[in-house]
């Protein structure tokens, strides 16, 4: 009797049974209690965490990370802080959960959200992937684990540019995504957040993706169709009671991050994103007043007809709304310097250097002041 088909059948049956046995966690877990495969996956995730920390990619803002953690703890109180959230310095609209309960949300995505309820929607979804052990359940688990081990284990560290790819690699089936949406939604409501914000989380991001003709970010790539998702959240929240939006808290907690994200967009020449976001007055409200300066810079980079006037208007608005914000004075100084209006340029440059005596570009400004004859 050829035992091979029998053994394969038994193996297949045992793996099916095993998938059904993987129950969601209801409390914090010690990795030491896990079976070998899951323990290995956990250990590799820990290694990935350490590599990220070493690389400097984790956004260095303890107050923000504490804020993110508070929200996660509110969503999953029984885990007592064991689902750890951190912001990651990356412009891509992405968030991902590792099999050890580490959740990362990219600064690019965080900066695009409008309030705490929307942020909680994302975190609740990612938390659900961990709690329901989706990475371990994944039908392609063996393949994923092998690739993950190859990237993280053999190399010792992940390739940082492939973070998004890695999260995609750890991406989940449509079934798991639907489950994470559903569980996440329940958690959102139970934590007292406004259920109606769940759909809005994605609506304006979809608009941005379409307007800029950018590739779908990984957070969405493995998810159900975007519009289906918005529709499903809208349907779910139809009869939901009003909950907390957390707009003001969110705006305050993410102020530093938002300015950082704007600067990142500018540095990377993503002026289109910046203009799209900041020209929308509803979204503009979520940004601190210094945002006017960044919009002015975005117009300067776009350099279409009339953009110079728009830049000037935004720079001026920035100096009015936030007089202590040095870069707007610098920008006005450069503008006047280019126009040959040297007396005005000098005034702005001096103001800039007064406000930012240790500015990294001080030498340039002093050189321009010298050339202006002052």
């Amino acid at each position: 009797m050829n035992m091979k088909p029998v053994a394969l059948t038994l193996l297949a049956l045992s793996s099916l049974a095993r998938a059904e046995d993987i129950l969601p966690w209801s409390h914090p877990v010690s990795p030491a209690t896990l079976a070998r495969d899951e323990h290995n996956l956990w250990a590799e995730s820990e290694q990935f965490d350490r590599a990220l920390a070493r690389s400097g990619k984790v956004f260095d803002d303890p107050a923000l990370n504490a804020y993110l953690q508070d929200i996660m703890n509110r969503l999953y109180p029984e885990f007592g802080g064991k689902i750890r959230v951190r912001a990651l310095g990356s412009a891509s609209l992405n968030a991902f959960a590792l099999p050890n309960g580490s959740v990362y949300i990219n600064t690019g995505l965080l900066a695009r959200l409008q309030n705490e309820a929307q942020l909680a929607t994302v975190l609740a979804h990612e938390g659900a992937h961990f709690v329901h052990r989706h990475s371990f359940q994944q039908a392609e688990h063996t393949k994923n684990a092998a690739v993950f081990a190859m990237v993280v284990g053999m190399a010792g560290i992940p390739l940082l540019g492939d973070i998004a790819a890695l999260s995609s690699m750890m991406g989940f089936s449509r079934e798991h995504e639907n489950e994470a949406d559903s569980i996440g939604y329940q958690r959102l409501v139970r934590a007292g957040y406004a259920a109606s914000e769940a759909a809005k989380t994605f609506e304006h991001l979809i608009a941005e993706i379409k307007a800029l003709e950018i590739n779908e970010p990984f957070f969405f790539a493995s998810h159900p169709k975007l519009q289906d998702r918005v529709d499903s959240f809208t349907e779910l929240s139809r009869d939901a009671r009003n909950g907390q939006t957390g707009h003001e808290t969110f705006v305050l907690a993410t102020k530093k991050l938002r300015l950082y994200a704007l600067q990142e967009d500018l540095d990377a020449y993503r002026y289109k994103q910046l203009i799209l976001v900041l020209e929308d007055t509803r979204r503009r409200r979520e940004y601190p007043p210094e945002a006017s300066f960044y919009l002015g810079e975005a117009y300067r980079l776009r350099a279409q007809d009339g953009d110079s006037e728009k830049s000037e208007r935004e720079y001026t608005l920035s100096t009015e709304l936030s007089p202590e914000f040095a870069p707007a004075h610098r920008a006005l100084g450069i503008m006047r310097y280019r126009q040959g209006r040297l007396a005005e340029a000098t005034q702005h440059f001096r103001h800039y250097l007064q406000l930012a005596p240790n500015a990294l570009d001080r030498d340039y400004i002093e050189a321009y002041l010298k050339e202006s004859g002052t």
Partner: protein
Amino acid sequence: MKRTFGLLLILLLSACAPWSAIDPDSRNIAVKQDYTLEAPVGWVKRNYDIYDVFLSRDGPLLNFIAVRREAHDQELKRSKRKTSADLLPHEIAELVIAEQKANEQLGAFTVLSNRPARIGGKPAARVHTRWKTERGLPIERLTYAMVDQKGRLALIYEAPGLVYFPKGLADFETLVKSVAFQ
């Protein structure tokens, strides 16, 4: 067997061929009847299509100097930006930083210094940056960049920050000072 060995030897030799030591008596390098510079002694030179000049002292992973002249309408590799002759030095510096920051592989990217400079008597930017590799190794890069009517010129020195960067810095600064436009 002899034939295979010979073929391997030829391949090995040809792979090594592009590197050549800088001759102390002939350090001057003229590029496209556009500019000249003096290569530092003790470094080796290799021909690359994308660079006008490419030098290393201890191997490209440990230190290198790359010099590149490009036309304004040629997009920068990562940020996809173009340049123009009327850019002010601080705007050139912004482009240098943007180009590096657009590389998501660079962890903990920091601008260490950024100041005006001169290349061959023309206004330029001098930007010193640092980042970490995925293994946490700090890498430093010093870029001199300028624009004129012909296009943009960048001179880059890059090395691991701990030992190699300070080691070759003086040679690079001397090389930058030697640039002369024809």
